[in-house]
């Protein structure tokens, strides 16, 4: 468990006077499911975008899968998968076409693409929908598909930004099954969420308040430290002091 795949040191992003993420320092281990929690506007998405190489940090350091976030963003991108808050597969392409396209630009061979997409479709039970436009699928399926595409190229780390927003409890459950399956194969999962039951599924979580990481530990340990019985209460105690929000 001690292989560090994400390591940040005082990672900071400023937009003018506004400090979106303030000196974040954390380590994430290989194969771990890491929950990245925080109220709306706490700076989660900004932090995640920096880790994915989508946004340049203002100061501080971070090493992702052994690569530096300033200089080696393109190498980072080869080794990570990303699923954004907003659904971002092509709605006007079919399920198969999307898989083929993303497989292709990650450099998979045609043979790999073929076997992988068959596997993926079988796993998600999308046999009947493989040739339908993605735009016509229900949201829950879109999200599962999105995740499967994000891990298609067997990345070391997958970043998931509120992957289960607006999805029904059953689908959420199925979604987490997918996450566990990926983690078992050694993929590190870095996930943000607003659902405290999901937080319980994580190996370790951090809670951000106003751009800073205020707590970082396993769910059990956190509950013990705050002397409460549920993650809801941990979160509430930390987040109520927040000055930012919607």
């Amino acid at each position, binding site marked *: 468990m001690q292989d560090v795949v994400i390591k940040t040191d005082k990672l900071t992003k400023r937009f003018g006077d506004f400090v979106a993420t303030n000196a974040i320092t954390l380590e994430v281990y290989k194969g771990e499911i890491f929950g990245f929690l925080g109220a709306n506007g706490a700076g989660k998405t900004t932090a995640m*975008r920096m880790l*994915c*190489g*989508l*946004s*340049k940090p203002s100061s501080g350091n971070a090493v992702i899968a052994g690569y530096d976030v300033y200089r080696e*963003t*393109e*190498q980072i*991108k*080869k080794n*990570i*998968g*990303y699923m*954004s808050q*907003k*659904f*971002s*597969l*092509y*709605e*006007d*392409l079919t399920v198969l*076409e999307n898989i*083929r*396209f*993303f497989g*292709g*630009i*990650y*450099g998979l061979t045609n043979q790999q693409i073929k076997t992988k997409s068959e596997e993926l479709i079988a796993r998600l039970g999308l046999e009947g929908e493989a040739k339908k*436009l993605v735009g016509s699928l229900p949201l829950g399926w879109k999200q599962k598909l999105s995740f499967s595409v994000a891990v298609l190229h067997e990345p070391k780390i997958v970043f998931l930004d509120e992957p289960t927003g607006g999805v029904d409890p059953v689908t959420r459950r199925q979604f987490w099954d997918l996450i566990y399956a990926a983690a078992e194969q050694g993929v590190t999962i870095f996930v943000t969420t607003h659902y405290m039951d999901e937080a319980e599924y994580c190996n370790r979580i951090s809670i951000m308040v106003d751009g800073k990481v205020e707590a970082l530990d396993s769910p059990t340990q956190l509950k013990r430290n705050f002397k409460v019985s549920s993650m809801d209460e941990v979160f509430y105690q930390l987040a109520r002091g927040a000055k930012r929000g919607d």
Partner: protein
Amino acid sequence: MRTVRFLLQKEFRQIFRNKAIIAMICVMPVVQLAVLPWAADYEVKNVNLAVVDHDHSTFSRQLIQTVTASGYFRLTGYNDSYQDAMHLVERDQADLILEIPAGFERNLVRENQQKLFVAVNAINGTKANLGGAYLAAIIKNYNQTIRTELVSGVTGDPLHLIEITSSNWFNPLMNYKVYMVPGILAILITMVGGFLSALNIVKEKEVGTIEQINVTPIRKHHFILGKLIPFWVLGNIVFTLGLIVSWLIYGIVPEGNLAVLYLFIAIYLVSVLGFGLLVSTFCETQQQAMFIMFFFMMLFVLLGGLFTSIDSMPEWAKTVTRFNPVRYLIEVMRMVMLKGSEIKNIVAHLIIVTLFAIGLNALAIFNYKKTS
């Protein structure tokens, strides 16, 4: 290169699934080329003429007859006072007033010279210019006729006369539509290419799919190339359609070498697509991209020499037109299609457009940021 292939596959699929784009590609060239040249007809004919004849003499009637028989003018008013004729001008029913003063015939014979008054509604500059010139020429001819009649070979030194013969090349029927069609085709290609490429990346931004692309290890120039090639192909299709339409409707067959034409279009398209992509990297919403493109299109078309000649512009405006890619396309289209110019005649144009293509695309790649 394999990445580019996947990008192309995706773009083409998306394009062919988008009905609006398909409609634009098929309908635009036909409609524009079928309607615009008829609407944009600056040929000066049917100039509306109001005559104020205070003289009512044989000469004045003869003169009016000569003018109306010339075919350039349409008599829309035969008035007794200048005021009445002026009302016709105010209501746009007359473009020219020809006023024949009282005593025209008598004075001409007795005093050997007589004035005539012509007033031109100069709001429409071209019409005023040419209409006035035609009228002057007709009056001069008429003058010559009555002179020979009255003088009939007598008196003094013989006159030294210069006979002017003129011939009009490349467009002997002086058909204005022939002039406009290649220019409109040029605008068409620019519009289709510019708007499609400008809206494309912005749409990915608005929908959010660009994020998913940006986290992949895809190279910037591969991405731009993947966007460029499909629209380049579409541009060529539109151009070919346009050539066919202008042949079917107007019977215009390029005088020059088709290969030269396609070579130029190939390079030109790269530059105009680069411009569209550059605009789209600057914008966040499709609305913005649309407006900015519209602004530049307006600028390019107005300063492209489509309607008014660049030679007549003041120096500063001429300098501006040098940075207008549309100008070069319009020139080349007219040269090659109507005059049969050869490749050696358009070398300078080719070089400039190539520079545009390189510069604009380099800027687009530079300005497309995977990392904010």
